[in-house]
């Protein structure tokens, strides 16, 4: 099977969908001639033409506003927001329009739009190239929110997102574009070709939206994570004595509660980890849900390990990043408790 990194896998997903469906178009800042600042759309304009893979003015609100109109007119646009930190100028179009169009028209209008955006830190990007704003979008009813943790899922989920008749906000953890990252910045970079999920079929396939994945089965505690943190969690699990079950949430909305419940009912202990800031982050929803669903199974308080509640600082990203050490400490705390 071919080896792809996450960028190639995402590129392949768009390539396949542009090929299969003439209604699919790709639009964003620098995505056309140049192929995107992360090269995710490399070669697509050459292959499908400048009417299908379109460079856009630097106006995130305009991009999202216009792709909604395109969606209403029968296309399936894939919009790239260059960095998740720059999605806010489009927030109103997402929250007030994209998310609510089907509802307010009782299903008469909808816009099957996918918004892709690289998120997360660990690339010395400072506070405007490192954010993980997924939590905000999960509070808006009417959009699906997805974040893959590996090339295989990235391609399969992006194809599902493009095919979905509902709008999908698709976050790509840029720290793992080129290889899995276990949270240790001093180790040499690992390419995806060394990872089983770097094996990505050339052709069409999809990974369903709405399903979490147990990436490591275990008995002693459950670690809920997604994106880059899936790899950090795996590394941390190797450092502790315990037999951790690691779940890659993958789809923040809709959330696969059943898989989470099953796990925590078994383990009775739960650590939630994400790179986004903690206060009112998505981890709060996970914690509240687990608490509601598994109260009688819980043997210890659920612990959240998250980015500190500050902007992402350029110089202190490794103090900020919820790395192995913090995760190990949390795991030990949860195991010792109760």
């Amino acid at each position, binding site marked *: 099977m071919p080896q792809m990194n996450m960028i190639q896998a995402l590129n392949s997903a768009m390539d396949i969908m542009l090929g299969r469906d003439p209604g699919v178009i790709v639009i964003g800042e620098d995505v056309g001639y140049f192929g995107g600042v992360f090269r995710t759309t490399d070669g697509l304009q050459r292959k499908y033409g400048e009417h299908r893979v379109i460079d856009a003015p630097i*106006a995130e609100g*305009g991009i999202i*506003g216009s792709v909604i109109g*395109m969606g*209403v007119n029968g*296309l399936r646009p894939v919009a790239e927001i260059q960095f998740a930190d720059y999605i806010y*100028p489009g927030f109103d179009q997402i929250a007030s329009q994209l998310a609510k169009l089907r*509802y307010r028209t*009782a299903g008469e209008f909808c816009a099957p739009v996918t918004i892709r955006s690289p998120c997360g830190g660990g690339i010395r990007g400072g506070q405007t190239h490192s954010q993980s704003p997924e939590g905000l979008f999960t509070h808006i009813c009417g959009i699906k929110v997805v974040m893959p943790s590996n090339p295989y899922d990235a391609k399969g989920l992006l194809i599902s997102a493009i095919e979905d008749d509902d709008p999908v906000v698709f976050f790509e953890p840029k720290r793992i574009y080129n290889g899995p990252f276990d949270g240790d910045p001093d180790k040499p970079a690992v390419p995806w070709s060394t990872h089983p999920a770097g094996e990505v079929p050339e052709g069409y396939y999809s990974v369903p939206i709405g399903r979490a994945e147990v990436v490591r089965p275990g008995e002693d505690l459950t670690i809920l994570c997604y994106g880059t943190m899936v790899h950090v969690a795996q590394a941390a699990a190797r450092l502790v004595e315990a037999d951790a079950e690691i779940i890659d949430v993958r789809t923040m909305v809709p959330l696969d509660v059943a898989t989470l419940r099953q796990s925590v009912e078994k383990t009775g202990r739960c650590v939630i980890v994400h790179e986004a800031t903690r206060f009112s982050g998505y981890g709060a929803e996970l914690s509240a849900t687990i608490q509601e669903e598994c109260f009688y199974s819980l043997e210890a308080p659920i612990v959240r390990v998250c980015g500190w509640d500050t902007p992402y600082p350029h110089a202190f990203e490794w103090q900020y990043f919820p790395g192995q050490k913090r995760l190990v400490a949390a795991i030990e705390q949860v195991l010792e408790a109760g």
Partner: protein
Amino acid sequence: MSRTPKLHVPRAPARPGEKPDFSYVHLSPAGAVERPEVHARVRDMSGLADALVRVIDDDHHAVGPWDPHLEVHDLQVGLRHMLLTRAFDERMLRMQRQGRISFYMQSKGEEAVSVAAAMAMAPTDMLFPSYRTQGLQIARGRSLVDLMCQCLSNSRDMCKGRQMPVMYHWSRGNIFSVSGNLTSHYPQAVGWAMAAAIKGDDDVAAAWIGEGSTAEADFHHALTFGAVYQAPVILNVINNQWAISTFQGFAGGERRSFAARGPGYGIASIRVDGNDFLAVYAVTRWAADRARRGNGPTLIEHVTYRAGAHSTSDDPSRYRPKDEWEAWPLGDPVARLKQHLIAEAGWSEARHEALESELRNHVDDCWNEAITYGTMTEGPFLDENELFEDVFRDMPAHLIEQREQMRNLQED
């Protein structure tokens, strides 16, 4: 902070108790403004953004190069649509005052803007309405019963009770959904038009906003994307002088017309007498032809006056002279088309009155039918379980569960 403030703060020309003053409205005589070819270059028509295209002159005759030379029949249809819009508005306003509907927004004084535009466009052109363009619906033949059912949130409400009154949509009639978020549909219309161009379709999109709404970000997004991709779209600004309590100067109208925003983007832009049915028709047709030929977007400012309150929640006597509308130099669009028909096409006061009463009866009949589908207080009601539908195409687990919770509670 003791020095004299130097901030310029726009002042309304007249406030309650003062004499209406429309001296700031720049007028051109009917017939005075040139009509460029539809494929003319933008730079060769910059005057259009400051002039005022008018066709009906003071003697009620159609004059000048913008005269669309409509058939008498079409003029009568236009008059009928405008009168029906007004009759509908009047009835709904009354119903709101009686507590039969929760809210309403009338378009009194601005009927020509939407009716003439809808008639000038092709039926497959997509319209992105604002909350004050019910004339688009009526001119496209929407059943009043449907509109009323929406305002009643009753069992036949197209929005299934999810929207406040007047937030209509009509996919079969190619009319998009009215949004409560000002200007949000402007870039959407441009995107729709871009998609038409991508697909190679001939369809044109058109959108309407108020002059106050031009200050929103989406105005700029729409103009930028429209200009960059030369989208086949008509961007209409209805300058009715007021945005709730703030006069048009607070959106920047003190210095330049709203049409004047367009040429700086390289967009063809026209300022038109919005109370002149013929002028609105002609200008819209010109813009639609231009878009359809691939000559790109047009920005149209319709100069008109909001004769009524902003909405049923508003009381304009708190912020503007009560008699402003009477002083409005561009008159009443209905009266002007009527006079034109009398002057040129054998229309008469008697026929006019007969038509008015026919339409009022029609509105009454529609209302009586609409309430058989339910009112706010009497059934048939919408199924409240519908509350959970259409958030997504397929209902996800958490919504199924919440629906269940609601049902259990109702049963208690």
